[in-house]
């Protein structure tokens, strides 16, 4: 069937089912190449379409039934029951989804699956004759079967909406005031709810909605809260599933009793079994992360003409046929499933599951493209968009427009990258595989292309920019950029020094590279070359708008040193959270000072106030480290949080903890009697946290022993003075008591925080079994980072920790 949205769609669907045939929806907006692929795969006996579509779509060679021209034939036919036997094993429908190899795959469901799909949802949501339900999803997506069939099967009213209508928030807002029951993806809902808020002072008009559900993508808690508020009389649900399990996997009834802090997808529908399995496809305990897999009546027959893929994706366990969703998640002790992310490169974009592999494969076939990769990126407005990164062949004419046209010609519109970004090279990880996480984020792309970005103009600026682009694998560099702030690190800086000398005879100073902007570096080069610099011409670059930064002492007897980064300006009515940065400790704090400050400045520039501080006896704070204790350092986190609360009352508080700072902060929540305690924290972001105080001290001892060995050539056997009551470890002197406390410091057994933490950890740490287990057991979201170099490099003390994407990651989480 290939039709524009109309009543005919419902008629055709019922007609196909009446004769026991197989329904294959074909989106008329698909590129001709994709339609041909699907037709070749399904070999349909009949194509139902309209005369106008038949004239422009590639249906040549196929038997056609034109719903407009052939209406007379339909009217002449009997409407009686044909009395045909119903074979539940016959294929009821085939929905095409994106495939990893560049070809779409047809998900083949039986009539038994269809019966399960419609009956289970009808039972669960008590769909009745009185219900009025709009069909919002595209007909080519399997969730549309729920929208089309549910009201028809229950005798209710189906509202078919044209595509332009669905994409117009104002018209959709009106529709929501006229229906009783709807399901919509979070992206579309977000826009419509915003429109409703804009146009309606009160929400009485929406009291007729008795069911509002969302799914198909991660549904953020705030969206569910908004649904509760606007549809005040509706039951609000999250629905989770995929075409392969007939969409109805789990559902979560959103409570009106309390505020939603995290989104669950709930419990399975009747006759559905859910399991969380490890890599060996063995069930994992409650709370442990694994792949979400389903068995039961909804599990479909497989993929059309793809037996190997079917065998790969569907498997038998406990005597039942299971399908692995590819989503990582866990089951809470209350039995609710929570989704934490994807295990492969399938993404969900505006409700659609898309295999990035298919986009990558199509990009690679683009004119002049040598390498390509795609990724979903989140923009400033929180919306994800597809970004295609391409590397053109050396002898090719790099034409992004031509690549875009190629994509439009071969993929459905929702799979065409919104941005196509040419790069010099694709970033590789330590295993020499393409590192998707190291690809420039939207904010980076926007920054370099922003209206205020100043393009290099002088010869030296252009030479440097070209080197930076090549070494950092970025497409644009502005005069105001700093090498390290663009993601450079010491090894890359060394490469820059070498290549600058080799290619242009430029001698750069490493200190200059670390601290200076491209414009200043170029001015230095010009001076060395005896050329006139902008400074000599009296030109001064415009001062960048930087957040207000104030250093001060606070806490008991003003003993703690802190720096408050206050946004230069915030948008009217906007209230971003306030961030407390609990820094690393000892030499790690010094090593990370560059990136810590950078994180604070970037957050403040985005309107998020930040307070960072030094623990008692460290940095600029008062006292000696030997007089410090774990109790005091935990309290310091609480003192700082109270200070931030004083500076920004009524702001939600986020704690970003790094290394030992993370462990101290989470333990500060459960302070002892008489100790300062943390105020309410809405979010925790923990950057490669120390998960065991004992392991941390052991590591310090190992490093310190290495330092002492390094000193041997100076001291020739003379041992450092040992004081019985203390122990020096890598430049910090701890009391024996503090060391004992540190060794006993551990991750709280029960999560001691009201909000689930997000872990930022490098891939190699996640791969470490013990650490991974500790992270999983801590009820957290885990965000794998590509750190290089890392916190735990053997020679870490000598190296400044660069911004390995941490600023971006934190900014993305918070905005």
């Amino acid at each position, binding site marked *: 069937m290939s039709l524009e949205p109309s009543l005919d769609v419902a008629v055709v669907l019922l007609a196909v089912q009446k004769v026991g045939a197989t329904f294959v929806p074909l989106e008329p907006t698909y590129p001709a190449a994709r339609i041909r692929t699907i037709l070749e795969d399904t070999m349909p006996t009949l194509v139902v379409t309209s005369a106008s579509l038949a004239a422009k779509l590639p249906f040549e060679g196929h038997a056609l039934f034109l719903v407009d021209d052939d209406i007379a034939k339909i009217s002449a036919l009997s409407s009686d029951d044909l009395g045909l036997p119903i074979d539940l094993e016959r294929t009821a429908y085939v929905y095409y989804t994106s495939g990893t190899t560049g070809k779409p795959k047809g998900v083949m469901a039986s009539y038994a699956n269809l019966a399960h799909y419609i009956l289970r949802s009808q039972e669960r949501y008590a769909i009745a004759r009185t219900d009025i339900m709009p069909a919002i999803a595209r007909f080519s997506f399997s969730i549309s079967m729920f929208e089309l069939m549910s009201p028809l099967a229950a005798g209710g009213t189906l509202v078919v909406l044209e595509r332009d209508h669905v994409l117009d928030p104002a018209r959709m807002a009106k529709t929501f005031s006229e229906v009783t029951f709807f399901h919509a993806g979070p992206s579309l809902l977000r826009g419509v709810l915003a429109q409703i808020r804009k146009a309606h002072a009160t929400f009485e008009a929406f009291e007729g909605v008795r069911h509002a559900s969302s799914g198909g993508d991660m549904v953020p808690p705030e969206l569910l809260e908004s649904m509760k508020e606007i549809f005040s009389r509706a039951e609000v649900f999250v629905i989770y599933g995929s075409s392969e399990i007939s969409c109805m996997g789990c559902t979560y009834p959103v409570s009106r009793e309390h505020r939603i802090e995290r989104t669950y997808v709930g419990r399975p529908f009747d006759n559905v079994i859910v399991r969380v399995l490890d890599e060996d496809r063995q069930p994992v305990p409650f709370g442990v992360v694994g792949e979400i897999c389903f068995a039961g009546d909804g599990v479909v027959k497989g993929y059309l003409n793809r037996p190997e893929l079917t065998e790969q994706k569907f498997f038998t366990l406990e005597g039942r046929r299971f399908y692995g969703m590819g989503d990582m998640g866990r089951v809470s002790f209350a039995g609710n499933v929570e989704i934490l992310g994807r295990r492969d490169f399938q993404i969900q974009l505006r409700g659609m599951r898309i295999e990035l592999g298919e986009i990558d494969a199509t990009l690679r076939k683009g004119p002049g493209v040598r390498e390509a990769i795609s990724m979903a990126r989140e923009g400033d407005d929180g919306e994800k968009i597809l970004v295609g990164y391409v590397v053109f062949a050396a002898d090719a004419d790099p034409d992004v427009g031509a690549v875009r046209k190629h994509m439009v010609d071969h993929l459905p519109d929702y799979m065409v990258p919104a941005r196509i970004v040419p790069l010099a090279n694709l970033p590789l990880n330590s295993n020499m595989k393409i590192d998707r996480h190291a690809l420039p984020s939207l904010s980076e792309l926007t920054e370099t292309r922003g209206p205020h970005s100043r393009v290099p103009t002088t010869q030296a600026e252009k030479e440097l920019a070209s080197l930076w682009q090549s070494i950092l694998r970025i497409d644009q560099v502005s005069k105001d950029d*700093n090498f390290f702030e663009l993601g450079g690190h010491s090894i890359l800086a060394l490469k820059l020094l070498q290549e600058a000398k080799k290619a242009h005879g430029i001698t750069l100073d490493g200190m200059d590279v670390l601290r200076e902007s491209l414009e200043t570096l170029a001015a230095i080069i010009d001076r060395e070359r005896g050329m006139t610099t902008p400074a000599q011409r009296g030109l001064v670059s415009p001062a960048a708008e930087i957040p207000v*930064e104030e250093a001060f002492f606070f806490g008991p007897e003003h003993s703690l040193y802190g720096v408050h980064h206050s946004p230069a300006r915030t948008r009217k009515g906007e209230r971003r959270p306030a961030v407390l940065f609990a820094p690393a400790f000892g030499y790690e704090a010094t090593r990370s000072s560059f990136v810590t400050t950078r994180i604070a400045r970037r957050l403040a520039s985005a309107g998020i106030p930040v307070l960072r501080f030094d623990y008692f006896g460290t*940095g600029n704070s008062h006292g000696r480290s030997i007089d410090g204790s774990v109790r005091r350092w935990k309290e310091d986190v609480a003192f700082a949080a109270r200070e931030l609360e004083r500076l920004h009352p009524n702001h939600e508080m986020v704690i970003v903890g790094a290394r030992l700072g993370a462990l101290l902060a989470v333990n500060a929540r459960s302070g002892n009697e008489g100790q300062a305690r943390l105020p309410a924290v809405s979010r925790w972001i923990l950057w490669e946290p120390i998960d065991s105080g004992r392991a941390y001290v052991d590591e310090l001892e190992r490093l310190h022993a290495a330092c002492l060995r*390094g000193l*041997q050539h100076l001291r020739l056997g003379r041992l450092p003075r040992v004081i019985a009551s203390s122990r*020096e470890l890598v430049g910090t002197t701890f009391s024996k008591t503090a060391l004992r406390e540190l060794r006993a410091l551990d991750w709280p057994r029960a999560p001691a925080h009201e909000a689930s933490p997000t872990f930022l950890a490098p891939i190699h740490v996640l791969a470490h079994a013990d650490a991974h287990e500790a992270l999983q057991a801590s009820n957290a979201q885990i965000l794998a980072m590509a750190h290089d170099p890392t916190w735990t490099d053997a020679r870490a003390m000598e190296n400044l920790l660069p911004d390995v994407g941490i600023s971006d990651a934190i900014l993305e989480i918070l905005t």
Partner: protein
Amino acid sequence: MKEHVLQFGPSSRIKGVLTEPARAPKAAMVLVSAGLVPQAGPYRLYAELARHLAKRDLATLRFDLGGIGDTAKDNAMASLRERTQSEIGEAVRALRGASGEQVSIGLGGLCSGAEDSFRYARNDRSISRVVLIDPFAYPTPGFQWRHLAHRATRRTLRALGVYRPSAALQEDSATGGASSLIDYKYMGREEATQTLDSLVRRGARAHFIYTGGSNDVFNHEGQLQKMFPTLAFDGRVTVDWLPAMDHTQILEEDRLELIERIADRLG
């Protein structure tokens, strides 16, 4: 002793901590950032030194140069050296404002902080003394002989199993230190000679401290005078040679010794 934050310079961009004695200070010091290490200094050397000096009635301002620690980069189109000199000047003015016009001011620092201090002092006649930890050094004939003897001793001890170089040292030796990003260029001898001459002539004092971290260029306290054979130190240029100490003093006993030495010279 009391400490408070000083924010100074245009737009209060530069951030530092002023450590003041309980009584009116008899002198004051500005500590200049070392390399990329923030104002508390490597392993808090500057913070501990400032508090120790306060006990001897000296006020100290430690601060971050632009782009380091808590001080934002200045976007003015000037070279790093020009901006560093300008920022030290701002620090000197801020300290003078806090401690009083009559208080004599000295400058000090480690490594690049030492050289930045030394360079600034040449152009600001109000600076009465400088304390330079591991600054420039120039090998002399005596240095070469001692260096050979030291290497021979090490090799003997290594053969006897008494001494084993660390893996890091061996790697550095094998690569010629190529793994270090900061190929810091020390001040040339001509500039150093002129600057020191200028300081001595106007009656300022200069105290040099060399640790074992400089042992590839400095290995005897007598070497300093040999490095500047044309200059008459006249008791105004002094030196401490601390060969058992590493460049950033990772051991507390080394930091304490260094602090005592400096305090004794200044006090």
